[in-house]
């Protein structure tokens, strides 16, 4: 048994920090081979009456630790105490594991996460931070979409703790796992890859095979959470992801229709009008979506005209529809928002005006209007104050709009702009990466070839290949073509 332990502890070697990436790779592979040769009972049997885990340091011996945990979760049985003990050890492991080592045992890592997500609700634990920590430790950007993303989101929603998913949700997805192309040599797993989609691939075991609907579902659920948290700009982004998701032959998914409906309502709530359609929308897809989501467009039209009565009538007439779509709360909320926007519109025209005028404009009684204004002001939607009249009547009170002073100081504004710049610069890296991958696809190469064939009609400057290298001697014209075609 002690032999097994020595095998298990044989990695990493003392000089691990000095190993070259290639050498490290070799070491790992030999080590893995040796681990595989050990009897499966190694992981579950106690050594000197102690659990194997106690001999291992999760930070240094991440591979065996993971394998042990994984094996023990299978055999743990129904003993609540044992399970809780394992969960605690999982927490320790997920907080400290070596993110390079686990890349070699991706599927086990994922299985462990799934087990954990499964077991948490059974134990009545609603804290999902273990999983988010694990995901961020594996990939600090959480930018490569995996099935784990969606699993976490579903688990959080089922447990009724949507905000727990935020650490992952707040990260932007910049890639989906794709197979590395055969033409380019595989990067070594242990190497510091610039982007996480370098090691999270369909073969890595960190995700199951993705389907389009998983992606749509992830964004739609995410949007729900953001709407609930009143983070409308983020909700808008997520909904637009869904609506703009590419499709073949203008097929529309029901999830897209749902997203569009929410998108319309979010626009009304956040800005008082529909968001402009993103420029990259597909006209055909949009037409199909709109044909099904007509009632929402009508609502938006009433809203934008600030026609409260018509909106109210539409809302009452379509109660059944809103209810079935699960949007009734949103529609109702927009109805109150409409009155608020009507009041807010007043500040574009007036600096000061008596409450009686507001009341007449809204069709309220002066007392009700006064109360309403007080509510809107105290909720922070309106930058204004109300001065009571001498005779204390509601009608003669005065509503005074304040200048729209930006609440931030110059310093915070500068900081915010700087942060925004940083975000866009980061984004540019991802875009370049996607661009590079795009240029390696067959379709792109074919498109380029067709471009070349267009002949003298096209602009000469477009035809010139700026990245052209001097031809290698001995390689004829045809050889060149072959490379292009492969």
């Amino acid at each position, binding site marked *: 048994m002690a032999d097994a332990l020595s095998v298990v502890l044989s990695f990493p070697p003392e000089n691990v920090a000095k190993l070259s990436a290639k050498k490290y790779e070799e070491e790992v592979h030999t080590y893995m081979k040796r681990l595989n040769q050990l009897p499966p009972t190694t992981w579950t049997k106690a050594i000197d009456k102690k659990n194997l885990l106690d001999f291992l340091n999760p930070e240094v011996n991440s591979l065996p630790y993971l394998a042990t945990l994984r094996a023990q979760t299978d055999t743990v049985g129904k003993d609540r105490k044992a399970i809780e003990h394992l969960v605690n050890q999982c927490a320790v492991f997920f907080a400290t594991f070596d993110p390079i080592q686990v890349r070699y045992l991706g599927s086990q890592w994922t299985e462990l996460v*799934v087990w954990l997500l499964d077991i948490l609700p059974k134990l009545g634990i609603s804290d999902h931070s273990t999983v988010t920590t694990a995901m961020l430790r594996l990939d600090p950007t959480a930018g490569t979409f995996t099935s784990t993303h*969606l*699993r976490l989101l*579903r688990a959080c929603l089922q447990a009724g703790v949507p905000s727990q998913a935020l650490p992952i949700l707040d990260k*932007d*997805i*910049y*890639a*989906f796992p*794709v197979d590395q192309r055969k033409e380019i040599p595989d990067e070594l797993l242990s190497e510091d890859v610039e982007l996480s989609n370098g090691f999270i691939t369909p073969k890595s075991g960190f995700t*199951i095979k*993705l*389907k*389009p*609907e*998983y992606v*749509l579902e992830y964004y739609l659920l995410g949007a729900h959470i953001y709407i609930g948290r009143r983070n409308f*700009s983020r909700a*808008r*982004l997520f909904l637009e992801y869904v609506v*703009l*998701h*590419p*499709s*073949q032959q*203008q*097929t*529309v*998914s*029901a*999830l*897209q229709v749902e997203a569009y409906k929410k998108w319309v309502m979010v626009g009304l709530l956040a800005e008082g009008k529909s968001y402009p359609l*993103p420029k*990259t929308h597909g006209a055909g897809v949009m037409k*199909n979506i709109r044909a099904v989501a007509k009632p929402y467009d009508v609502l938006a039209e009433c809203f934008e005209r600030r026609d409260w009565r018509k909106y109210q009538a539409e809302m009452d007439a379509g109660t059944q529809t809103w209810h079935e779509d699960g949007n009734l709360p949103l529609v109702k909320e927009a109805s109150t928002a409409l009155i608020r926007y009507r009041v807010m519109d007043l*500040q*574009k*025209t*007036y*600096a*000061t*005006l*008596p409450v009686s*005028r507001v009341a007449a404009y809204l069709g309220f009684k002066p007392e009700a209007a006064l109360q309403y204004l007080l509510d809107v002001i105290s909720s922070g939607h309106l930058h204004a104050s109300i001065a009571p009249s001498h005779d204390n009547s509601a009608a003669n009170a005065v509503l005074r709009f304040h200048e729209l002073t*930006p609440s931030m100081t*110059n310093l915070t*504004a500068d900081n*915010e*702009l700087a942060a*925004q*710049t940083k975000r*866009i610069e980061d*984004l*540019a890296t*991802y*875009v370049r990466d*996607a661009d590079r*991958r*795009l240029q390696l*696809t067959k379709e792109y190469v074919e498109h380029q070839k067709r471009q070349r064939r267009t002949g003298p009609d096209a602009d000469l400057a477009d035809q010139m290949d700026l990245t052209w290298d001097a031809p290698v001697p001995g390689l004829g014209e045809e050889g060149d073509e072959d490379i292009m075609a492969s």
Partner: protein
Amino acid sequence: MAVNGALPPPTFDLDAWANNYEGALLPLRLAHVATRCPPLARQSLTTAISAAKTGKNVQLYMRLCELAGHLGLDDLRTPDEAWVSKQDEGNKRELSRLEGELRGYKNNLIRESIRMGQEDLAQHHLVTGGPLPDLSNPQSLSTAGYNAAYQAFGKMRDYCTTPTHMAAMTLRLVYSAVLMAVNAQQTGGSAMHHFNSVLANASRLRTAGVKEEEQVKLTPIAIAMTGIAHLGQGNYRDAAASFRYTPAEYNNLGPIHGADFGRLVASANDIAIYGGLCSLATLSRQELIDKVLGGTFRVFLELEPHMRKAISLYTTAKYQACLDTLQRYYSDWSLDVFLGAAVIAGGNGSHVDRLFALIREKSITAYFSSFSEVSLASLASTFPPTTYAQTAMEDEVLSMIDSGRLDARLDALNGVLIAPKSDVRAAVHAEAKRAAEEVERTLLLRLHKVNAALAGLEIPRSKAGGGVGWGEVAAMGDGVY
């Protein structure tokens, strides 16, 4: 005429004014004066009817008599039946003679003769007012009246052999189109497409392809008529530009191909007024100084010193004096057949009213721009409200703010108009932030699209073919678990 409101007498003398004009438009001008200005109704109709009687247009004569009846001028209302039947008879005989001649020419296939025969026929339609429409057939409306003349002139095109012929024909087309437009306005029809014909023909006139010395005589007419057409369509900015570029030769141009547009349609003085008003209503102060007072249009303005004065007053920020000056000539201008026409067929308000309102609005905006706060009372004393309602000034200001023409906020309690203070730095910051967020969002969306396509995660084609793929939801299931 549907434009309501009786006008006080103008500053000019009617006879002297009428002496400036001739041709088929003169009786129409006088009719316009008669409808708008009761004190002058008798005098102008008398002149109009006697002018009509020296011509051959029986329809016009009858219409003027009818108008006299409407206005209660009983001595003028009874038409001279003997003259009417005699003239009508003569017109018909002349028409059949011309048609017969034309038929003969066509049989002989001599192009030049056909062209001249066609022209004679068209001219005849023009002076007699064309054939009467057949009331049972609504289609015939388009070939009755001045339309007949317009179409007959148009038929000359096939038989024109030189650019000069073409130019002469186009010139006549322009004139007939103007006539049709005015006629339509007075009978309550829409003049829009007639003005479009004016625009189209006037632009042809500018590129007639004739010799240089002929072209310099055509261009002023073409530009001035373009301006009038834009004015008639309510495009004051385009009208201002056209009038501004009208060459000074328009003044005293004399007859071109037998038509003196200065007397037939609009004199150089008229052009000065039209151009001045349209410019005042649409151009900024600097543009007025550079392009109107300082440009070639100055020559026209010399003809109408009060117009020039009004523009100078405006450019020196003496808005009240400017508006007062304009107001003094309100009557004169409203009696003009082009300026006084209703903006919308059958609607209230003439081009003069519209232009005055625009100038007033611009003045208020310009006046307010130099203050941070102005009380409504002082605004009302500088710009006396046009109506007598209690809240006239407030309503006017509110509608201007609502439509975005005036950047201000109203303090309804104290009756003060306040200029919004803007923190430029903060505004730029907010704008930059907004733009950056937009860029970020767009980039993310495009990245998502490219990535999804690269990973083969497109929404697959639905088996049902097109439409919404509801199947997607069912397939989703719990496959992930």
